[in-house]
């Protein structure tokens, strides 16, 4: 019985250790960014511009950059993923649907840095030629490539939801003579609402947490972007770029503020997904 206890304690220890990392990351961000938060400066930090020469270290431009790139990439990726999932689950003939799904699964395995690399040498020149503006490193380029990064996962979540619809519903629709599209519209989509929403939110989290695409393709200019052809810097790219700076500077401390904002955002998204999931359980 001693060995039983010993093993259980060991397993519990591993579980507690892993869970404590979650808290530890938050504590580190808070502790190291602490000088910034004293006297309630944290919120001013989120709303002021970045101009180190004038002693302004606000991360508002990065916040705006992040939000615009995330929003735009979802504008491309969400309809695309929804359409592609409908194709895979309902519309395409079985053989082609299988091929599509396999391809999408493979796409989730492609390293982000490779998307970024191809973006730099293929997409950016293309955008530059197309719009004849600047370097081509812009919110548009980054958001297009980012939508390629997040779409495969989103499609897999959607198709899983579509395919989890009870067979009896599907059979009922078939028996009533519904066409595949009607089945999709009146049976599958209403049933999958929560799954679609959860997939969308998880993708927001992924898009927001991605560093490389924005770092490589968005140009990293520290200014609030005015159009989608402007260059922008995201919070993640800001962390990657400033890390080399002097450790004691205020400039350096701002990356902990950026990290904290990212942490809080992604955590709230996870909580949101959980709440939706919880409601889903009750409804069924």
């Amino acid at each position, binding site marked *: 019985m001693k*060995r039983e206890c010993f093993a259980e304690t060991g397993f519990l220890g591993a579980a507690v250790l892993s869970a404590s*990392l979650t808290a530890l990351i938050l504590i580190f961000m808070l502790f190291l960014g602490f000088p910034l938060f004293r006297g309630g400066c944290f919120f001013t930090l989120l709303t002021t511009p970045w101009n180190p020469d004038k002693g302004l270290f606000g991360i508002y431009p990065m916040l705006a950059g992040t939000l615009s790139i995330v929003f735009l990439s979802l504008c491309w990726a969400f309809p695309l993923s929804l359409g592609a999932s409908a194709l895979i689950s309902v519309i395409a003939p079985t053989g082609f649907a299988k091929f599509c799904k396999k391809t999408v699964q*493979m796409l989730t395995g492609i390293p982000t840095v*490779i998307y970024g690399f191809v973006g730099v040498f*293929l997409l950016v020149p293309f955008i530059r030629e197309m719009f004849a503006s600047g370097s081509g490193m812009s919110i548009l380029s980054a958001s297009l490539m980012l939508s390629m990064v997040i779409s495969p996962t989103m499609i897999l979540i959607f198709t899983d939801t579509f395919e989890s619809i009870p067979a009896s519903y599907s059979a009922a629709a078939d028996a009533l003579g519904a066409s595949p599209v009607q089945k*999709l519209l009146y049976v599958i989509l209403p049933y999958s609402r929560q799954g679609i929403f959860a997939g969308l939110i998880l993708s927001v989290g992924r898009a927001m947490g991605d560093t490389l695409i924005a770092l490589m393709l968005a140009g990293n200019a520290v200014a609030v972007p005015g159009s989608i052809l402007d260059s922008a810097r995201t919070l993640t790219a800001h962390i990657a770029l400033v890390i080399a700076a002097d450790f004691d500077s205020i400039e350096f401390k701002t990356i902990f503020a950026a990290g904290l904002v990212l942490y809080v955002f992604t955590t709230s998204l996870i909580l949101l997904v959980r709440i939706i999931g919880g409601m889903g359980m009750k409804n069924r």
Partner: protein
Amino acid sequence: MKERFIEIFIKSFAWLSGLLLLSAAFVIIGFLLVKGVPTLSLSLIFGDTSPADALLLRRQVLTGLFPAMAGTCLLVLLSVGLATPVGLAAGIYLAEYSRGNLKSFFSLFYDILAGVPSIVIGLFGFSLAISLHHYVKEIYPCLLISALALAFLVLPYLIRTTQFAMESIPSETRLTAPALGATKLQNIAYVLFPRSLPGIASGVILAIGRCAEDTAVIMLTGVVAAAGIPGSLLSAYEALPFYIYYISSQYRDAYELQTGYGAAVILLIICACLFLAAFYLKNQLMDRMLYRQ
């Protein structure tokens, strides 16, 4: 009439998005292969050094990808080696020992950890290195710190796949050993864990893939553009994905750019192989389940 119009619209939209996605994917991969495959050669990897000398570490490789590939391998081995025991143990705890509120509490924490952006994990690793530096002067961002941070990154995946693999064992199998007088630990060690190995193994392989491709974590925790083969756990190192990133912004001539394409193709091949291995193992698990029924 309206019905008919909607039907056609939705169908064409679905085909359009599907084909758009597929063609974009093929353009990306095709572009990389067309540009990258011709650059693949032994000299791309080993430069002017002979492969045997390089592999036996008799001579430094100065112009090839070998140090970056070796760095990635070491990094993957270390981080997965660190994360796997903890991840499996925590997964077992979650699946077999915890109940009710405690279970949902733990899963919430792991979900949050899985959602934390990798750059924030990297920042955490960096801060850890700086904090430790106050006590141990030798510690800077280095191979060990990167491996630790990557281990944090993949830990929640390992925990969840382990938990899922164990929980999906059918209850007849679950009861067999206890009915023969097995204790809980014996049941886990002799029946439940071996039965969930294919699922766990595919989780470990996906974790390897994540460690091999990650760039954001390592660029904050010790990777550099030129370091050679790392001499110890506390030295800086090179890695393939970082090399690709570095070349894309800092390449000096056409030749260096060529090596960038080569590195990207090599990384793509590595990740594809890992992915296929994970896929194969997962299907094996499914087969076994069906067979048992």
